[in-house]
């Protein structure tokens, strides 16, 4: 390798609290009539004041705890000042130098990646442009938003994608966000730079931030595109510009949005309308001990039931599937079905949406599926004969000693017969016909 890739991530997650971050308006705005979830506070009317949501703050801390962060006993909100039509107050209430969570880490693909910070802020309104006019919808204004920032520890798009998937999984396990990217509940911003100095540990003197990415797949593409683009520039002896780019789905490329030189000076200062937050150690411990089961623990529990790690990971992707699996396994055992059998059934039958299926129902389905249907042996034999004559290659391979071809033949037979039958009988018939 003649270059080094350095990637850090900023991820925004919208919390699914009932009310907004600083007022009583419903935060469940998706699909609602524009400006129907508003009040003086989230509209930033003169004189209105923010009241922070305790629920949102505690969930933010729990996200930090799930990412092994340190929770300082003192924290505060700050104002991030900038002008934009979708920003009602002319500033965003965020956290600057004393966020709720600091210095965590996460295991991805057997490696440890650093979490710099997890902080709380409010979402902005939404602009839409119609012809010559622009419209503002403040339904999203003030919806609680948690920002998770990583260290520049990632060296490739594969680890990044795995991190993002795991982060999504964690917030869903915590029950604090649906993290649905289509609805903008999870927004991804990788910061990417490349260095030709493979031995140095220093960060390059520039970085490129890619915004507005709404799928893990696009993150992967955007990163790989950026690595190539930046390498081309570096190879000419130049330094890529420090800038913000966006992912253009149509072009399958990143496009420059804003050079950092024009970047805002946000003039952060402590939010005077909200007193600082002082935690007690007891409260932090209480929040930690009330954390629900997290994905890593789920995988451990599944593997403890003697199922393959790869399947344990699949089965733990969603907490709903996992809990159905855990509920089904003991009942299935009474019917002589192994935990692996249950896992197979859920995975192979794409039964990943198990909501509405009780463990008992699931066991009944598996038992039914496992029960072999009776089949007329003569009928079966004629199918075997037809398969073998249609596919002379099978016989040739068999003669050459390729025993694996039997498996292929079984598959062909099963495909034609379209019944759940005992494969041992099929194998026996094939072998007989081949001899």
């Amino acid at each position, binding site marked *: 390798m003649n270059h080094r890739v350095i990637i850090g991530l900023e991820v925004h997650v919208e919390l699914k609290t009932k009310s907004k971050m600083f007022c009583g308006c419903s935060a469940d705005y998706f699909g609602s009539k524009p400006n129907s979830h508003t009040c003086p506070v989230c509209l930033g009317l*003169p*004189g209105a004041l923010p009241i922070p949501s305790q629920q949102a703050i505690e969930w933010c801390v729990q996200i930090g705890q799930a990412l092994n962060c340190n929770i300082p006993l003192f924290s505060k909100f700050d*104002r991030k*000042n900038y*002008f934009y039509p979708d920003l*009602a107050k002319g500033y965003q209430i965020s956290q600057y130098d004393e966020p709720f969570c600091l210095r965590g880490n996460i295991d991805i693909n057997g490696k440890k990646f650093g979490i710099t910070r997890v902080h709380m802020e409010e979402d902005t309104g939404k602009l839409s442009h119609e012809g010559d006019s622009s419209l503002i919808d403040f339904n999203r204004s003030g919806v609680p938003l948690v920002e998770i920032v990583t260290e520049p520890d990632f060296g490739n798009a594969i680890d990044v994608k795995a991190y993002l998937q795991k982060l999504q999984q964690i917030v869903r396990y915590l029950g604090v966000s649906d993290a649905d990217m289509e609805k903008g509940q999870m927004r991804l911003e990788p910061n990417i730079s490349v260095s030709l100095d493979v031995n140095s540990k220093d960060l390059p003197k520039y970085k490129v931030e890619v915004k507005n990415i709404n799928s893990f797949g696009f993150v992967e593409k955007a990163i790989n595109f950026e690595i190539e683009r930046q390498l081309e520039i570096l190879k000419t002896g130049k330094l890529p510009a420090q800038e913000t780019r966006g992912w253009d789905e149509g072009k399958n490329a990143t496009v420059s949005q804003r050079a950092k030189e024009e970047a805002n000076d946000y*003039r952060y*200062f402590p939010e005077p309308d909200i007193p600082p937050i002082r935690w007690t150690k007891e409260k932090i411990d209480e929040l930690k001990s009330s954390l629900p089961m997290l994905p890593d623990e789920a995988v451990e529990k599944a593997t403890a039931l003697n199922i393959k790690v790869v399947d344990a990971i699949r089965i733990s992707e969603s907490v709903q599937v996992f809990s159905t699996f855990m509920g089904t396994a003991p009942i299935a055992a009474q019917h002589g079905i192994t935990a692996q059998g249950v896992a197979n059934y859920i995975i192979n039958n794409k039964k990943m949406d198990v909501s509405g299926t009780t463990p008992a129902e699931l066991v009944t389905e598996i038992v039914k599926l496992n029960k072999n249907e009776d089949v007329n042996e003569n009928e079966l034999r004629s199918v075997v004969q037809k398969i073998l004559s249609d596919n002379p290659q099978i016989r040739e391979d068999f003669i050459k000693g390729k025993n694996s071809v039997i498996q292929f033949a079984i598959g062909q037979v099963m495909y034609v017969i379209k019944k759940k039958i005992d494969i041992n009988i099929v194998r026996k018939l094939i072998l007989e016909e081949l001899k």
Partner: protein
Amino acid sequence: MKLNNLTIKKTREGLTNKQFSSTEVVNNCLEQIKKHDLNAFITVCEKESLEQAKQADELIKSGQNLPLLGVPIAAKDIFSTKGIRTTASSKVLENYIPEYDATVITKLKEAGAIIIGKTNCDAWAHGSSGENSDFGPTKNPWNEEYVPGGSSSGSAVSVAANMTIAATGTDTGGSIRLPASFTNTVGLKPTYGRVSRYGIIAMASSLDTIGHFTKTVEDSAIFLNVTAGQDKKDATTPLQAVPNYEKVLTGNIKGLKIGVPKEFFIEGLDKRIKENIENAIKFYEENGAEIQEISLPHTDDAIACYYIIQPAEVSSNLSRYDGIRFGNLRDSFGQEAKRRIMLGTFTLSVGYYDAYYKKAMKVRTLILEDYEKAFQKVDAIITPTSPTLPWKLGEKVDDPLAMYLSDVFTVTANIAGIPGLSVPTGFIEGLPVGMQILGPHFSENQLFRIGHFYEQAHDFYKRAPYES
């Protein structure tokens, strides 16, 4: 009988005893507003207040008894009033009509008060004389060539000139106490967080306090009984019990320790005011209080500290006025607002934040510690409210620094968050003088007791302009 000259106490007594009606009181006030062109009001709610008076009279007839039932109150025009234009005395909000009431307005209405009108002030409460109003300056009723003090100029004048029974104000650096001392009224700046800021157009959020102007200290206590307390809409109002402030007016100050800070009696303080305040202090001493000289060593740094923190918060608080959803565009801001936006934007900028804002916050802590140390020795502190008498209209408008310095005795209370009460102590050359009584956080009851004791023996409130 001129009903508009009454105090809250006397108005309520007369209404309850059916000596006169609320409609008569309101009519007398409206007549007085029309009679003297002092530019104290931006909006007079003539129709609404007469309707409300009528309703109040019905309630009184049916035996209702509420602390402010039927009493006309004027509100500084930065208190949001539902359906009534609220301008902050700025052209930016010339046509802004709030869709909701400030918490204090709600509380006043629930206590039966009638909002008689919205008073003039320095635009966005930026100023010490009332002259920064985009709607023209307010005149001092004791001498119309003089400023009434600001920023709550119209509220002070409306009470002093008997155009209302009482009025609300806001005090960020002295905006209630200074005009109170310039107009022979009682002005209370409560402890930070004692009264909700919700719905009041913010100037500098960490310094803004919500108080009022009354004719007597007793009225001030009655008023605070209505407005004080935790508000679920203002996160900076603590859950701190609200005593009955009227009950503490015991007329007893024996053994009370009063501190006199040497830093306030210095060069630049008008000698006549010095003498006036020393006499007031002597009065307390003669009546059993213990007087101690104390030191508040960081007083000198207060104005510098204030003029960093305050414009920083102002620059941020005025960001929402972008003219997109309501109000006029930002070029409608007046000179003083523009000056503060620029100052604040500068001090918060990268590279300057540590040198200015952060340092000012450290000084803020030192000033707070000065007071904490002082209040270990004394129960209250007495100072002049202003180092000078009211000045002539136009005298300082071209010298913002001189204008800023008029708050030198009042800003420290805002920086420390402690309460302050300005009480009339007489007249010099026909212009009013006031003393400032300061106390520890949430010691309003003590301030009332001390102020009331003086007032009982010196009834300057009985004097009215245009009548002497």
